């Protein structure tokens, strides 16, 4: 095990997969000479050259679609969106081509492609640059969506994504890029579609993914000091969604809180709630509650932004509300 920053773990994943498979290439804005807007691809141009680390003009639909075509023709592209916010202009390519080409060709073509970049709010970047995209993309059959929260998962899930024969969307986080974590040595692969118990507990089940794992674990620490033991489940992958550990946990705790940064309407949290009420109905001692981002475009003002994004404090309050039933 070595301690790596989240962005270094991603970089190692890319470098190792490019070393392993000649068909893997990277395309996106500022990925080469600029060394990546968030420095994830730093050094890769020097190592792999312009043929495989390709700076694209500002044309997300164009280069996303180009990469989908290249995947259909036998390559294994990794597309970087500078942020997932910019994927909105390539939404049609992901929805109508990447997600569907296998089905509408009667299984003749596959689309082994990775789209990756930071998701969710950074710091005071305003409404157009602070959005969570997992609900939009996880809605689509044909797409896999993963939200690694740790350096180990950043490396392992990105490597697994590159090797997957389906379109896999890796939703990273600008606020996690600098975080450190232990990463297993060697060819570390983390399976897609397997959730994990990030902290064991017996009183309340907290289900989360991505950056909200940090707030959820901090809240669990705070509550533990009061004698409340939370079991925190990191979904890791929101599609496919591995809910079995969630159900097993709720069977034990009888109480479930879902924590997401995204807006409340519909979404991944609502999907979790549906599965819990269906599969753990008999065990529930309280309704399943959600802590979510506020139902509004992200404000720029720092104080208002902090009030909009779930925090350790809002998760603690959510757990207390559950226990009050």
């Amino acid at each position, binding site marked *: 095990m070595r301690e790596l920053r989240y962005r270094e773990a991603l970089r190692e994943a890319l470098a190792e997969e490019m070393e392993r498979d000649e068909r893997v290439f990277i395309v996106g804005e500022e990925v080469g000479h600029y060394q990546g807007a968030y420095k994830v691809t730093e050094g890769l141009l020097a190592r792999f050259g312009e043929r495989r680390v390709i700076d694209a003009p500002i044309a997300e639909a164009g280069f996303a*679609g180009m990469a989908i*075509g290249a995947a*259909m*023709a036998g390559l294994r592209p990794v597309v970087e969106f500078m942020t997932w916010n910019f994927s909105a202009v390539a939404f049609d390519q992901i929805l109508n081509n990447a997600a569907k080409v296998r089905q509408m060709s009667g299984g003749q073509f596959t689309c082994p492609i990775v789209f990756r970049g930071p998701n969710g709010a950074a710091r005071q970047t305003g409404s157009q640059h602070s959005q969570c995209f997992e609900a939009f993309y996880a809605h689509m059959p044909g797409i896999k969506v993963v939200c690694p929260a740790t350096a180990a998962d950043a490396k392992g899930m990105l490597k697994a994504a590159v090797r997957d024969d389906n379109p896999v969307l890796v939703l990273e986080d600008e606020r996690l890029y600098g975080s450190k974590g232990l990463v297993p040595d060697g060819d570390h692969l983390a399976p897609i579609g397997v959730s994990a118990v990030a902290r064991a507990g017996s009183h309340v089940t907290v289900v989360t993914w991505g950056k909200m794992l940090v707030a959820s674990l901090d809240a669990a620490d705070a509550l533990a000091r009061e004698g409340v033991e939370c079991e925190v489940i990191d979904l890791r992958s929101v599609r496919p969604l591995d809910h079995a550990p969630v159900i097993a946990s709720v069977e034990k705790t009888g109480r479930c809180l879902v924590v997401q940064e995204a807006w409340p309407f519909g979404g991944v949290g609502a999907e979790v709630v549906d599965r819990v009420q269906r599969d753990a109905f008999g065990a529930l001692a309280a309704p399943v509650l959600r802590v979510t981002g506020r139902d509004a475009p992200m404000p720029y003002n720092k104080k208002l932004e902090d009030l909009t994004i779930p925090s350790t404090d809002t998760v603690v309050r959510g757990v207390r509300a559950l226990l009050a039933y």
Partner: protein
Amino acid sequence: MTNQHDALLDLYRQMVLIRRFEEAAAKAYSQGKIGGFLHLYIGQEASAVGALSNLTRDDYVVGTYRDHGLALARGMSARGCMAELYGKVTGCSQGLGGSMHFFDAEKRMMGGYGIVGGHVPLAAGCAFAAKYRGSGEVTLCFLGEGAVSIGDFHEAMSLAALWKLPLVTIVENNEYSMGTPLSRTMSVADASAKALAYGMARDRFEAKDVLVVRERVGAAVERARRESLPTLIEVQTYRYRGHSMSDPGKYRTADEVEERKKDDCIANAERALRALGAGDDVFASVDREIEAAVDDAVRFADESADPGEELIEAYTYA
């Protein structure tokens, strides 16, 4: 007979196959055997047939929802194509795609796509893959003139020119973007003029003579293959039928359509063949052969089974 005669006869046969196939499809549609949308290519046959006659078996073809002619010109079987229209499991996409989504991996028919312009970046990607591998394939991409207004077209052309991709983009200008004449959709009537902004080679010609299409597209294919450079071509053509089967065609007069039929690409090819010495027997023979092939395709489609329920989710994920 000469080589020229034989080559033209082959193209003529393909064009007649497309037309008879689509006439049969229109009939089946009116009988309720084909559902959804059905966009016919009738009138435009010289474009696909002439263009694709330049390709090797490894080259890539990407098209729009008006894809039956493209598929047949690429050598896909009339049986597989008709069965797809009928939604049968024996269809080229197992009945999951339908009229707008004909695919054939073996023939490198990379698909027909239903979102206007959305397939153009995919074609750039096929060309990119060929260049990345150094494997030499050329990609031919077809779209209508209505698609040049959408951003995906612009982005794909930008990338193709910037990265010098072996891509030949053929804008089939049939004068109507669905029901809107090009005078009301394009500020410049010549779609190929857009190539100037990308620093891309361009060409523009009428698709009345299949040999002209073959020769002019052939030059672009050679440019792509030998120099790895893209070309934007506008082929001027005309569709005789509506945008789709549900189109009553009120945006143009019957006289206009009849006038345009006088310069028909199949009739023109027949005249050229007769000038090269082909007699009635040749055309009678082609007619018999094509009629039998289309009848066989219709019978095959009719008798084939529907896909089973197990196929609903079977191909969602690899």
